[in-house]
């Protein structure tokens, strides 16, 4: 058995009986056991449950009822609620929280026969771009253990990048799937807002949060998305849309927005430009254009995300579940000490800024203004998509940075300069490996019109048939 096999190959192996789902799960559990003390990609490994699920998958395959994901190991970001399995959001606040329900994403992937091996590390409450804010310690980059895997879905990206699981779920609020995918050299898709149910996905910023998938190839991501997506009566904001299917014209117009491409330093710029040229060589036209409000995206994003987070995290008050301070003197003391000790610094910073921007006297200047900026950014994209079929852009200003290197919060927020605009516009966006700088993977971002994931998948698949960046894997 080899790591880094595609989902399709694993499915064939299972169908042929080359190995059982139990053997496949065991193989990956052993890889996790060997690597994860170092990598810290997992918060919980759920070996027993995994083997039970694998046995069930084997019985299903034996009955000839297996689907494309039956018996395929995967990991869930620890932001997705899993019934009977601790779901921590990488926070001390939820360190012992065991939900009595599954997230819709978890339930659907289980129904498809996947075998969940564990819950992956992340930034606390998905607030961060490095997976360093986790209560369980930072996850590490499989390409260089001294570097961050990106964030917030860093554990999922690192686990797939290191070959510990063939695929994993993630969530993306301002870049939390795309940036770690780029840093870890894997493919990651943030679907259109509303494509995937948010039920049971612990909320950070509800108007931005979107579940998605990591895989070793566009094809694998497409397979996982196929089992996750679709309307959910439990999520009013989930859309009723036809399932995603790879569909792209042979010759597309691909926009290179000047705001994203100018100022890219040396190797990084060359690497990305070469990737764009590859798309041109495949028969697509590169079109230079402008998304004029790009600069305003990061500030607008941090105002809106903070505002929503400040309300979403109010429920963690020590009263019903989660961390509770001992021997409270009174109600205020219970609130104050439970939240002071239960939340980390970055989470508190965002609750504070969000509370501030919603307050009387500041609401118009911050929250409403940010919403106006958001509409401008949406409008930018709508206009752009009258000219181009898809947009190609960098994911992050550089490759993975060293752990601890970005210690200024605002500098960390600037990591999200190329990912927050598509988030604010609710658009599908994907990151795929497109080269290396200094031995570290670089990701190319493709952004499409709403619910045109199929177009991104077609372009990405075509790119991956012409290149082998996605087949490069770290040693060890």
């Amino acid at each position: 058995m080899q790591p880094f096999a595609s989902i399709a190959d694993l499915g064939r192996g299972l169908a042929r009986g080359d190995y059982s789902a139990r053997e496949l799960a065991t193989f990956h559990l052993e890889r996790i056991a060997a690597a994860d003390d170092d990598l810290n990609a997992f918060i919980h490994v759920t070996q027993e449950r995994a083997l039970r699920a694998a046995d069930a998958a084997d019985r299903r395959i034996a009955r000839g009822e297996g689907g494309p994901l039956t018996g395929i190991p995967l990991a869930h970001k620890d932001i997705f609620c899993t019934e009977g399995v601790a779901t921590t959001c990488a926070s001390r606040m939820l360190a012992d929280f065991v939900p009595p329900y599954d997230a819709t994403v978890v339930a659907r992937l289980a129904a498809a026969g996947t075998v969940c091996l564990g819950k992956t590390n992340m930034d606390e409450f998905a607030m961060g771009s490095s997976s360093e804010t986790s209560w369980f310690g930072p996850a590490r980059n499989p390409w260089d253990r001294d570097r961050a895997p990106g964030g917030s879905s860093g554990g999922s990206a690192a686990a797939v990048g290191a070959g510990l699981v063939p695929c994993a779920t993630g969530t993306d609020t301002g870049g939390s799937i795309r940036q770690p995918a780029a840093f870890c050299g894997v493919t990651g898709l943030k679907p259109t807002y509303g494509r995937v149910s948010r039920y049971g996905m612990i909320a950070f910023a509800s108007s931005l949060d979107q579940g998605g998938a990591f895989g070793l190839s566009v094809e694998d991501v497409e397979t996982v998305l196929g089992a996750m997506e679709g309307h959910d009566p439990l999520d009013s904001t989930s859309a009723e849309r036809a399932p995603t299917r790879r569909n792209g014209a042979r010759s597309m117009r691909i926009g290179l927005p000047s705001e994203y491409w100018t100022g890219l330093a040396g190797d990084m710029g060359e690497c990305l430009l070469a990737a764009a040229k590859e798309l041109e060589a495949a028969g697509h036209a590169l079109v230079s254009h402008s998304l004029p409000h790009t600069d305003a995206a990061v500030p607008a994003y941090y105002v809106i995300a903070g505002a929503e987070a400040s309300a979403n995290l109010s429920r963690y008050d020590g009263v019903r579940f989660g961390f509770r301070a001992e021997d409270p003197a009174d109600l205020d003391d219970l609130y104050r000490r439970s939240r002071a000790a239960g939340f980390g610094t970055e989470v508190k910073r965002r609750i504070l800024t969000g509370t501030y921007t919603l307050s009387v006297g500041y609401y118009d200047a911050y929250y409403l203004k940010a919403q106006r900026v958001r509409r401008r950014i949406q409008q930018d994209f709508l206009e752009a998509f009258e000219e181009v079929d898809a947009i190609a852009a960098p994911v992050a200003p550089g490759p993975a940075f060293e752990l601890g290197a970005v210690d200024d919060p605002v500098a960390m927020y600037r990591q999200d300069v190329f990912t927050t605009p598509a988030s604010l516009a609710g658009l599908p966006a994907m990151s795929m490996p497109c080269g290396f700088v200094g031995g570290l993977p670089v990701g190319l971002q493709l952004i499409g019109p709403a619910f045109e994931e199929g177009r991104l998948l077609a372009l990405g698949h075509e790119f991956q048939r012409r290149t082998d960046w996605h087949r490069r894997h770290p040693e060890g």
Partner: protein
Amino acid sequence: MAAMDWESVIGLEIHVQLATRSKIFSGAEAAFGAPPNTRACAVDLGMPGVLPVLNREAVRMALTFGLAIDAEIARTCRFDRKNYFYPDLPKGYQISQFDQPIVGAGVVEMEIDGATRRIGIRRAHLEEDAGKSLHEDYADMTGIDLNRAGTPLLEVVSEPDLRTPAEAEAFFREMHAVVRYLGICDGNLNEGSMRGDANVSVRPRGQQRLGERTEIKNLNSFRFLRQAIAHEIDRQIGVLESGGGVVRETRLYDPRADETRPMRGKELSDDYRYFPDPDLLPVRVTSELLAEARALVPELPRAKRRRYREDLGLSDSDTGFLTGDPDVAAYFEATLATGCGAKPAANWIMDRVAASLNRSGLDISGCPVAPEQLGRLIARIEEGVISGKIAGTVFDVVWEEGGEVDAIIDARGLRQVSDTGELDRIVRQVVADHPEQVEQFRAGKEKVLGFFVGRVMRETGGKADPRQVNVLLRDALRAR
């Protein structure tokens, strides 16, 4: 110094618990009286990752109310988060409607002291109720019951059009009748199905500008509402007349002490940091939904009152009694449907039926005498088949044993003796048996007629029509 003439200005906010089967944002049952925390699902508990889904029935009920008060109905409205920390508020915010309520300006018409008053409604919006904090049963602790969390509320905000505690009470009563007629609220005040907050201020009569106001929260009976407002008006006048100023604050009414006190609860905040709830899409009020709601608006109390007065010729007090409770009005109308007269039907319901219900502690919806039976009973009196006295007996039989009015009359031989020949024979016999009294009558002593009527009625076992007996007796007495 002459005492100043003060005018009080009152506005009410009434929280109407909508009678939906499930909660406004979850599938949990919305029921009163279950053991604590057995009617709260993950959504009501504000568990991580759960999401609200709007109950369409609550929207329909809000629209029905809006149509009933001729209100502006928003084409689209949305939900907002109202942020504050309190243990019985699981999410740390309440989902409510801030600046885009589902129901806009409308009017409620009510009657007080025989005059009609139109009270402006500023808006009505949907929101979720919070749970309950139970302070009594736990030493040094507070219990939290989240059964009520997520129960749909329609908060109706009146204009400050009310001027007296009696008017405020009349308005609360009218609102109570309206929501019960609409079938959107069970109206059980003692279960908290309707709770009022009163905004009260006073000003020198003639002054345009409003005085500083206070808000009295959580008034859940007609009487407490009137008393609390009356007390608060007196308090404010006292403060102002002693040279002080009214402080804008929220107060609670203590019915035992009959006074209001400033509220110190933690659920009060200066800034609720409202913002649109991103978990819920804006609600589009489609024409289909509106049509559905319109079809469910019945005849309302004010229209009924007019009709009872103008078409049925009933008095104001009869009308007030019959329309106050939709179940009473329905009983009355079902009685009329059998073809009996309106006035006798009203009298029977207000006297005999009301007294019997009261004695047995029953609601009219549980009345053992169906309105069809009552209508038939009244019709038989009108037809002269039975006397009013016998009708009372028949009513009691139906109440106790059930059965059908005509069958009971026949089976017990209660039919009036209307056979003129038979009655004539009895009358002649009675006259013949009492020559002395005949002489007295003929000498002009009219009162003796009563003696003869009594004798005839005794002979017939009460089954004779007294009017007919009178006529026959006069004939017989005059005859030689």
